């Protein structure tokens, strides 16, 4: 695990190193390359960098990587003859005047705040994949947003954004795949009630039994049955989304389980299920640990209460960081070709990418397993009965 975080760090720092040297060399990288830095407000940069369009000739791997692991409002598939080919996705906003829905194609593939989309009598811009109410007029860089001169924060207001983004769409695709896979497997059992599993059921059953026996039964204890459906859903939800993230082309390639929002929801589910099922014994051990001097008990209670939150927090960060790291490494390796600007690097790139991809294949299952296992462990601790 440590190694992976090192790799993540290495990849990220390598990316930023190249990026910074690029901008120093070219001296005209302000709007595009500042993406991913704390300041999104490109317009805050002053007139030295008058050219707001990034130089197409200089490849910025950090920008490319950050773009790929981040969410977006359209599903970019590829560039063809200088034209972007992608699937426009619905933008759904809860605005001051109610619900507004329009296609992301109204932004014309723009995420620099240059194109205003008008819908329902309101104007919006997409600035670094965040939707803002557009300013009446563009600033000197052609961006329809204003920034605070000191903090560089965008001052424009944001509507509540519940758009079907790339990640959401990918989530739906994975959900449909999971549903079809398992309901079809379930049909086998309806038809052949006592036969040995074959086909899809033969593939699915060992996995289901593995989750039930090795994850749920071994860690939760006697009342495990109630939680098996939840653990199964968590396991396959994470695994399938991880796998979809490894597929380099449509409809894969989104970074769903490497997005902190997704892992946060999953960790929150684990948190709620664990603490709402906590028995007397569990809370007793958190709030008033038996068998200790009274003076120590409140101290330990504080530590234990923090522990309630750090456990799901670690779940959230672990999955997010592992999957994001995998994506960054693969993208970095592919970027090598463009950084060195020679085709001769490509064998190295491809072989290394292949190696990492195979490793990631393992990681997809491993991370799904670890998340589910730890959830089951926490549940087991919460459900533990008093044993004298």
């Amino acid at each position, binding site marked *: 695990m440590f190694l992976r975080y090192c790799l993540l760090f290495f990849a990220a720092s390598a990316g930023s190193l190249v990026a910074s040297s690029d901008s120093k060399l070219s001296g005209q990288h302000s709007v595009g390359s500042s993406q991913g830095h704390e300041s999104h407000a490109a317009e805050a940069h002053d007139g030295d960098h008058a050219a707001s369009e990034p130089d197409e000739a200089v490849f910025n791997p950090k920008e490319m990587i950050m773009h790929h692991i*981040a969410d977006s409002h359209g599903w970019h598939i590829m560039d063809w003859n200088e034209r972007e080919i992608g699937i426009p996705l619905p933008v759904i906003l809860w605005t001051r005047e109610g619900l507004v829905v329009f296609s992301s194609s109204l932004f014309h593939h723009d995420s620099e705040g240059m194109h205003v989309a008008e819908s329902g009598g309101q104007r919006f811009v997409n600035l670094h994949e965040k939707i803002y109410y557009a300013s009446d007029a563009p600033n000197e860089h052609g961006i329809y947003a204003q920034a605070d001169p000191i903090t560089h924060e965008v001052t424009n207001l944001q509507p509540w*954004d519940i758009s079907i983004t790339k990640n959401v769409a990918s989530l739906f695709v994975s959900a449909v795949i999971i549903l079809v896979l398992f309901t079809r497997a379930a049909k086998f059992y309806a038809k052949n009630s006592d036969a040995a599993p074959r086909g899809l059921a033969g593939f699915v*059953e060992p996995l289901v039994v593995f989750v039930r026996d090795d994850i749920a039964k071994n860690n939760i204890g006697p009342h495990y049955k109630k939680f098996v459906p939840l653990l199964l859903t968590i396991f396959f939800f994470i695994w399938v989304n991880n796998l979809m993230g490894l597929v380099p082309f449509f409809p894969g390639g989104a970074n769903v389980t490497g997005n*902190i929002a997704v892992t946060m929801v999953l960790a929150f589910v684990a948190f709620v299920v664990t603490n709402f099922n906590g028995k007397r014994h569990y809370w007793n051990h958190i709030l008033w640990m038996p068998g200790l001097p009274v003076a120590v008990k409140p101290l330990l209670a504080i530590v234990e209460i923090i522990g309630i939150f750090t456990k799901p927090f670690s779940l959230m960060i672990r999955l997010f960081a592992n999957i994001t790291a995998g994506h960054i490494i693969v993208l970095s390796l592919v970027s090598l070709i463009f950084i060195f600007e020679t085709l001769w690097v490509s064998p190295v790139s491809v072989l290394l990418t292949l190696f990492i991809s195979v490793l990631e294949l393992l990681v997809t299952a491993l991370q799904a397993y670890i998340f589910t296992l730890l959830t089951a462990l926490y549940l087991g601790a919460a459900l533990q009965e008093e044993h004298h």
Partner: protein
Amino acid sequence: MDIVTPGFGLIFWTTLTFFLLLFLLAKFAWKPILQAVQDREESINAALKAAESAKSEVAALQNSNEQFLKEAREAREAMLKEARSMRDKTIADAKEAASEEASKVLELARIQIDNEKKAAMAEVKNQVAQLAIDMSERILRAELKDAEAQRALVDRAMLDLKSGN
């Protein structure tokens, strides 16, 4: 950093999708699959248990068969032994009874023979005495036809008596 800031929209859709998925899978996938797997496990367990019990039943049957055989063998042995001893006893008894009877018959025969002998002897004695008396009567008659002869006899008898003392 943008990548560690969870977006509201994605949280919303993930929650919705996850719970919808959980509900649908639990109802249409996990329930039938887990039920089928459990049923199969139970039926396999039941079959194994049945096989085990059948095996132990057969073993018990075999055991009891052997027991029966052993008992039967023992019973036969005992019966044979008893028969043998009975035969021996019967033979011995018969022998004893026969010899007893034989000796009894012999005794009886001896007594009878003795009696016959005594009777015969008595008969002979009687006959002899009769004969003697008859003879002596005849002799006496003949002798005592004259007085002379009678006297001579008395004298002789007197003489005998005298010398006999």
